[in-house]
């Protein structure tokens, strides 16, 4: 007997190049289209489900966010309560409106205060009172209010002038004797138009009506008041008297969703030295509810994605196993022709990855179509996140590989001697 060797001395091991594995996967798919369609259909459904669920939830979240944003606070009020320190009569810097306007999210800002004389409301009449100043005053709390408006207030209150014009920068700068009437007060005073120059008398001091305010959503009180330029109010009635309850208030109009941030920053913008002096308030709005709703939608999204992934994985795995079972004679033949166990596993994995990828591409397209059509049905704006869309086919390919692991193991352990003698010819 010749000498015995434990292994062949010069024989190169058999190999399977990746390009050959992919090529064989492509040929196997085209040769057996029905199982291939079944396998990739489960990937298609899973990815379509994933993308559609993601897109629909994103679209719905967008709608919910918009709906809640419309109900968020857009008005902030700041006052400076009386302190023990000697404060100036007007607690805000003269350029406060400009400073606040510079903050992101601020649309307009301006101060106002109710004008009174020694705690009594200012008498408003359409003609001079002959009994002398003071005698024709309206009793406290019953007459129309007189409001002093600093620059920016009218914009911050959202005042819309329906007749005439509002007073402007010139009136503010020159303490002009002009005023704006609220529509309810104008009706009460019998003033319907400003085509004729109407005069009203504030504590017997004449004032020209420049316009009538039809609406003021940020400060509805304006509709029942006479609004004076702040400089005019100071000139006629003196600075705001805190002791008489005339506390100047800053009104800030902000964009939806910006209230919290602006409210935090505004005191520092007004006075870096004493930001805590100011008391800031705004309506909280349904922020928490909005967060709860979008959080629930996100949870739903995660559940939907996992359900889709699990569904696809099970479908892929089942069909892949079925396909491998049908191909056992072919796999045994390959093994007999020199393929190693790992080569058979690679064949199966490459095929299921390719099918997953193809199904993923088709599924992503279908999912986008579903989102767009569904959104169009209800007149919503479709929201599709590209960062989640593009990886979907890749994730399907990976799912294909994962789903192919068990079938690949099954293929790797095929016994060619049994299979080739027991199975019918291909």
């Amino acid at each position, binding site marked *: *007997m*010749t*000498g*015995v*060797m*434990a*292994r*062949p001395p010069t*024989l*190169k*091991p*058999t*190999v*399977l*190049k990746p390009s*050959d594995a992919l090529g*064989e996967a492509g*040929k196997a798919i085209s*040769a*057996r289209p029905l199982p291939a369609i079944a396998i990739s259909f489960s990937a298609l459904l899973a990815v379509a489900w994933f993308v559609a669920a993601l897109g629909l939830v994103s679209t719905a979240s967008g709608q919910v966010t918009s709906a809640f944003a419309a109900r968020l606070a857009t008005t902030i009020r700041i006052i400076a309560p009386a302190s023990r320190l000697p404060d100036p009569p007007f607690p805000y810097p003269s350029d406060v409106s400009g400073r606040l306007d510079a903050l992101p999210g601020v649309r307009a800002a301006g101060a106002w205060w109710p004008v009174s004389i020694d705690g009594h409301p200012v008498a408003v009449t359409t003609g001079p009172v002959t009994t002398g100043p003071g005698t024709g005053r309206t009793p406290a709390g019953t007459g129309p209010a007189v409001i002093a408006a600093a620059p920016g207030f009218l914009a911050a209150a959202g005042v819309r002038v329906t007749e005439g014009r509002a007073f402007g920068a010139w009136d503010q700068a020159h303490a002009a004797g002009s005023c704006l009437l609220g529509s309810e007060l104008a009706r009460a005073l019998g003033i319907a138009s400003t085509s004729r120059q109407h005069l009203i008398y504030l504590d017997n001091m004449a004032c020209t009506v420049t316009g009538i305010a039809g609406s003021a959503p940020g400060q509805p009180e304006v509709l029942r008041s006479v609004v004076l330029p702040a400089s005019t109010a100071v000139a006629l009635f003196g600075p705001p008297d805190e002791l008489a309850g005339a506390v100047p208030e800053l009104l800030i109009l902000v964009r939806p969703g910006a209230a919290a941030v602006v409210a935090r920053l505004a005191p520092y913008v007004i006075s870096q030295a004493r930001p805590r002096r100011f008391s800031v308030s705004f309506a909280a709005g349904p922020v928490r509810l909005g967060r709860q709703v979008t959080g629930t939608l996100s949870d739903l999204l995660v559940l939907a994605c996992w359900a889709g992934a699990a569904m696809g994985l099970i479908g892929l795995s089942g069909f892949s196993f079925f396909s491998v079972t049908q191909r056992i*004679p*072919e796999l045994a*033949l*390959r*093994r*007999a*022709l*020199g*393929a*190693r*166990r790992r*080569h058979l596993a690679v064949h199966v994995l490459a095929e299921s990855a390719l099918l997953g990828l193809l199904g993923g591409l088709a599924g992503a397209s279908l999912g986008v179509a579903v989102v767009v059509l569904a959104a169009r049905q209800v007149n919503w704006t479709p929201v599709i996140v590209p960062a989640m869309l593009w990886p979907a086919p890749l994730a399907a390919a990976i799912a294909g590989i994962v789903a192919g692991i068990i079938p690949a193991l099954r293929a790797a352990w095929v*016994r*060619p*001697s049994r299979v*080739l*003698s027991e*199975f*019918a*010819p*291909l």
Partner: protein
Amino acid sequence: MTVRLLPESGWPEDQDHDSSASTAQLPDPWPVAHGQPPVIELQAIALPSVGRHRGQRREGDLNLTVWPGELVMLTGRPRSGRSALLNVLGLLDRPAAGRYLLNGVETAKLRDKDASALRGRLIGFVFQRKILLPSRPVLDNVMLPLLYTGPRGRSRVDAALDSLDRVGLAGRAQLMTRELSAGELARCAIARALVTGPSLLLCDEPTAGAGPEAAAEIIGVLAAVHREGKTVIIATDDQLAAAYSSQSVRL
């Protein structure tokens, strides 16, 4: 299992051979292989059990030595174990007992990598069922073993066409396998087995299902392969094959 190795034809006249003996030893060395080690050495092997005997270990009594360039016929009744023996020789199965040396290599402890390399590069196998991929053309089927043994691109196609030419199927390379006759299927399977240039060709009933003319063509192809110096082992009862064989083993 009792195995009898009966030479039926082709014994050299100058050898002293007792044809009535049931022996596990063949004349040693065979004349065509002077100075070369045997391709196959079976030492007291038992074939793997099938059916209800699976897993049972038995003492083996099958001995066989095949020298390079021999054409060996395996004969016997159906279910006598010819296919099982070819499976063992082709490293598709392991013997239940005994030793099998292939080109001097102990096969019992071969790793998957080495066994696959031997199957892919050294052994060509023609299966009884002529298993071919049905939805692929003839050329693809013949190129299949080359997928694992190296050549790429055009050289892979050239090798497959050359192999088809050797079996007389060059003109049918682009046909689908379902369009071939039984004889052509067998020759296609032989072309696939030869495409890697193996030195050992194992054929399990290559003429099964083929008509007399087709069977003659198949045996002619195998004889031509043998004349090229390859070692050929055929499991068949075809008498024409017996005429070409250098030794015959009856199971």
